[in-house]
């Protein structure tokens, strides 16, 4: 993504959801995108697949979203549709609402397999028994013990963890080269979350998919990501490999976010709190949008917007302190 800017026209005014995002997902990596609610992380994920309803969403001139060599920002809607489920797939937060309640799990996975064939140049459609085998294979891949039985179930008959597994099976069946996972474990319990995270890691190596993993949970990021991008008020404020970011966070926002989490190893210490709250996306503060909450604020921060710059090898930050 290069200089991606996206706005929503609303009755209250223009919501500046993405304000110049530069982001790269490399092959075979998990890029964690972390930020608090309203920072634009979901919109960013949706914009890769052209899924933001337009209008009101409007991608501004100069935004480039390159997938392989194609600029998605310039593609016609039906060309983007061709990419969905073949080149790029998406998993959403709430497995219950993203599955269709009136079709069985098997039917829904089969649909994604059929679509992949329709959209590829391959003209011979596989037989339905071949598709069935692939459905079962996909379910086995997500460690569902009894795929034949689960394939005949409807979504409401499965637990949250099982539904999310089925969603992942559906996405993986289309063998995407990029998977966008928007808070895929947020609705799940921790023991189930740890199962799903592990599963996603395993699958990634198996079918060689890159993952853009969107979450508000730094703990989840620490578990799964190779690299991390921190988002604040529609911009990336810091980007680094996962160890570098957690060991040596450079942006005051990242530092504040990390310090605000209660840690089991430091229970007697009072957690630090960031003052204030997330800024309004209609009227974001001028200059660096974090400046009203920043304890290191300088005059310059109020008027000029810092660029995302590489300050150490592989570690970028948008802050005048560096």
């Amino acid at each position, binding site marked *: 993504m290069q200089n991606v800017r996206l706005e929503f026209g609303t009755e209250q005014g223009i919501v500046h959801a993405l304000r110049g995002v530069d982001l790269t997902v490399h092959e075979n990596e998990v890029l964690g995108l972390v930020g608090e609610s309203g920072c634009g992380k979901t919109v960013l994920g949706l914009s890769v697949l052209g899924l933001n309803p337009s209008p009101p969403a409007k991608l501004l001139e100069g935004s480039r979203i390159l997938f392989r060599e194609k600029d998605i920002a310039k593609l016609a809607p039906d060309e983007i549709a061709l990419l969905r489920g073949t080149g790029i797939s998406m998993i959403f937060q709430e497995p219950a609402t993203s599955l269709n309640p009136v079709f069985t799990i098997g039917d829904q996975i089969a649909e994604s397999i059929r679509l992949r064939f329709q959209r590829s140049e391959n003209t011979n459609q596989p037989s339905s028994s071949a598709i069935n085998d692939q459905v079962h294979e996909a379910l086995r891949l997500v460690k569902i013990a009894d795929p034949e039985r689960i394939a005949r179930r409807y979504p409401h008959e499965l637990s949250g*963890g099982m539904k999310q597994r089925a969603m992942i099976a559906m996405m993986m069946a289309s063998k995407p080269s990029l998977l966008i996972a928007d808070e895929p474990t947020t609705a799940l319990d*921790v*023991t189930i979350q740890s199962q799903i995270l592990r599963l996603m890691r395993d699958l990634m190596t198996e079918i060689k998919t890159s993952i853009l993993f969107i979450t508000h949970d730094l703990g989840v990021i620490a578990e799964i990501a190779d690299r991390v991008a921190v988002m604040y008020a529609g911009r990336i404020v810091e980007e680094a490999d996962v160890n570098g970011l957690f060991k040596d966070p450079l942006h005051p926002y990242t530092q504040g976010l990390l310090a605000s*989490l*209660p840690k*089991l190893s430091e*229970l007697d210490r009072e957690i630090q709190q960031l003052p204030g*709250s*997330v800024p309004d996306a209609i009227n974001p503060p001028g200059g660096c949008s974090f400046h009203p909450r920043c304890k290191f604020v300088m005059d310059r921060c109020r008027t000029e917007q810092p660029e995302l710059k590489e300050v150490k090898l592989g570690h970028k930050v948008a802050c005048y302190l560096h």
Partner: protein
Amino acid sequence: MQSQPVLSVTDLVKHYAVGRASLLAKRLGRTKRVLHALDGVTFDVARDETLGIVGESGCGKTTLARTMLLLTPPTSGKVRFREKELTALPNDELRKLRPKIQIVFQDPISSLDSRMRVRDIVAEPLVAADVKDRAVIRDKVAAILEKVGLSQDAMNRFPHQFSGGQRQRIGIARALVCGPEFLVLDEPTSALDASIQAQVLNLLRRLQKDMRLSSVFISHNINVVCYMSDRIAVMYAGEIVEMGPTMSMLSKPSHPYTQTLLASVPRVDPSQRRANTEITGEQPSPVSPPSGCRFHPRCPYAFEKCSQMKPEQTVVAPNHWAACHLLTK
């Protein structure tokens, strides 16, 4: 516990009848199916103490919050507050005690009436407690709003004009306005962002100290529960499986479920990625909980006895017990 407990819960049970028994089942003398939301929960909370209750969704945490305050009547069991047995009190007596035992709910949107102004929301417990003097009410509301960090002009505004963190402060102000001695906090920060959660947690810690509150802090987030609580109880499928002082629970988790739960918490440190802490399966259905130890179908150490007999509480450290057959094996 040395001092007299402020609140004690003894063998609290809450069952819900679900569905309808089929004609055949009725003929066979079977009654309705029963959902076991809470099965024999017992604990004390001492003065100034915070007891944390942690467990996954559906384990009965929220049912516990509601039944211990008799917001829903328990199926059986006792709740004592100071010298009074709440479960035996007639309604009007119970009502008189309500100002002393308050609750903060999880969702700061649905727990505040969107058509009431903040001053009326916060004043409602006072009105319910028959405080008639308007000046007294106004002063109390103003004082408590200040205490939770809201400005005075918040009074005349409506809930939707506030952010999530501020709304939760309104909920906390409402719970504290009568000067309660005991507070139940049911996932008070799980709807909030990390930086806002930290603000609310620190506020709650300060208020607990200032107002000498005893409380029960319920959450699915282990880090948050540990941060807030002196003691912790771990719930699984409607039962407490382990309880003890926070530090002891962390250094010596003794029930396999507690161990799993602790191991499943993502560390905020990529260098500590877990290699191998795998638990399989999911929580059992509360309609037909497993026999014996309810964790046995998922437990990596389960042996024959686990499916046959309910494990007893075994003391593993001072004030720290766990209910697991491994400990008596």
